């Protein structure tokens, strides 16, 4: 089975928005979005004697995160990097990724649960729509047999079991597995694995965003906080506070 796993290179540490471009500052150090490590791990677990290709869209530095996926055990990497794709929103990103994925024609496309920088947790559904493939998100368990993927999906109401024929798109939760650490041998071997870098022209798509950032402001502050020592009257003090706030 051929599996494509989509990953994102995210800024390390507390993020910063550049006041000029109003975009996330991606000039500093970055790392593989840790939620995507779960998707890479799941791909390696499922691939059997097939192939895992890691796919990313991002700045040239995103190659570091793809190399990490290769070091974990992915077989190939594809980076779509183009200045014209900087600041892409969901519509633009899903167009570009779907274009790159269409060239791969994988049996299964995996995503992680969310991007830790933009808190986005929607990309898979847009990509699946463009590829015209079934999609299942929030996967807590994934099994593949006889050309069908079976997913235990976690929702607000508990666990669903959903099946879809391959090819399909699945987004896994971070509870699904414990990602491996790359071994030294894996890190050394990653340097020799095939690595393709593509421009938007190579894929034949344009990155046209349909949303914009208008302004940056400070979040509203909380009101005055009270702090009390928990002596014998603490429970009564809480009840009085809740009554004052009309919560009981």
């Amino acid at each position, binding site marked *: 089975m051929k599996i494509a796993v989509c990953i994102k290179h995210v800024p390390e540490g*507390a993020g*910063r*928005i550049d006041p000029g471009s109003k975009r996330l500052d991606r000039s500093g150090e970055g790392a593989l979005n840790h*939620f995507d490590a779960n998707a890479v791990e799941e791909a390696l677990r499922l691939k059997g004697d097939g192939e895992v290709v890691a796919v990313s869209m991002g700045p040239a530095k995103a190659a570091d995160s793809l190399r990490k996926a290769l070091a974990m055990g992915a077989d190939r990497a594809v980076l779509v990097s183009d200045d014209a794709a900087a600041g892409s929103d*969901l*519509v633009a990103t*899903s167009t570009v990724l779907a274009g790159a994925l269409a060239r791969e024609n994988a049996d299964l496309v995996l995503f992680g649960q969310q991007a830790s920088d933009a*808190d986005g*947790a*929607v990309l*898979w*559904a*847009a990509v*699946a*729509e463009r590829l*015209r*493939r*079934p*999609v299942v*998100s929030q996967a807590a368990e994934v099994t593949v047999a006889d050309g069908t993927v*079976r997913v235990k999906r976690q*929702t*607000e*109401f508990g666990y*669903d*079991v*959903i*099946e879809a*024929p391959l090819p399909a798109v699945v987004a896994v*939760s971070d*509870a699904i597995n414990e990602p491996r650490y790359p071994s030294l041998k894996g890190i050394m071997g990653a340097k020799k694995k095939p690595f393709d870098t593509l421009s938007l022209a190579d894929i034949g798509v344009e990155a046209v965003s*349909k*949303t*914009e*950032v*208008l*302004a*940056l*402001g*400070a*979040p509203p502050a*909380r*009101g005055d*906080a*009270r*702090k*009390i*020592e*928990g*002596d014998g009257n*603490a*429970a009564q*003090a*809480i*009840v009085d*506070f*809740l009554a004052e*706030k009309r*919560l*009981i």
Partner: protein
Amino acid sequence: MSVLVFVEHHDGAPQKGSLGVLAKAASLGDADAVLVGSGVSSIDLGKYGAKTVHVADDAALEAPLPQPRVDVIAKLAPNYDAVFFANSVLAADVAAGLAARLDAGLNWDLVDVTADFVGKRPALQDTVLVDVGWTSTPRLALFRSGSFDAQETGGTANVQPVDIALEDFSTEARMVEQAHAEASGPSIEDADVIVAGGRGLGSPENFSLAEELARALGGAVGATRAVVDAGWYPYSAQIGQTGKTVSPKLYVALGISGAIQHKVGMQSSNVIVAINKDPNAPIFEFSDLGVVGDVHEIVPKLTELVNQRKH
């Protein structure tokens, strides 16, 4: 201006989060709603402010899967200035699928929107509030859960059946076994009151302290990632960056330190009460009432006092 609201339902009842978004839409102009499912025609949304309710009622739409919903809404959305969604596992997938189908911009994690369609979005662990916009219509917006309260307006909606035509690929995913809401209390994202427990509870058995207090307050039980990872409580109750984002009227944190991973999931709660024995716990920095003390002593007494007030 006109807004279409995707109203999610479960076991025959509209979800509170969707009704809150419907109330917000109605406050901005004409708000219509779309209901997709099987046996959903009887759900009354007129009394929550919808002018017209588009109803796609068909056995093929029974399972809460996103792609058939994209097919239904894609036919309606181009007639509106915006389509609003209350965030959920299902709604996020529907909104993103629709964004791709229509090449329509989607802004997510919004906590508010103005009448001229400027979305308000806290970002970077809520350290910055970003104004976001759309450069085409329909504008798609996914709101953080608990951003708005439902309003009973007592109106009557015009109900319009929707013609259903599903794409081949939309019906390939199949629900084999569907989860049902646990009978033990409100779902965590819809609850007005949440009592959450962390490592400070000391043991899995001590989650009964949180459960009893939640029952007394008519609320749901939440948990931190640390206790979920340790197997003390199910993941479905997890609140935080990798769990659910909630904003109940009252959030009671028991033995929770307030790590950023947890904070981002609950800091927009109206009132936060924290009990923790560590006076330096970060949770006290964003609590309305912080109590430095032992949860094992304070919580049973608190539960008893709350129960007494009810009688």
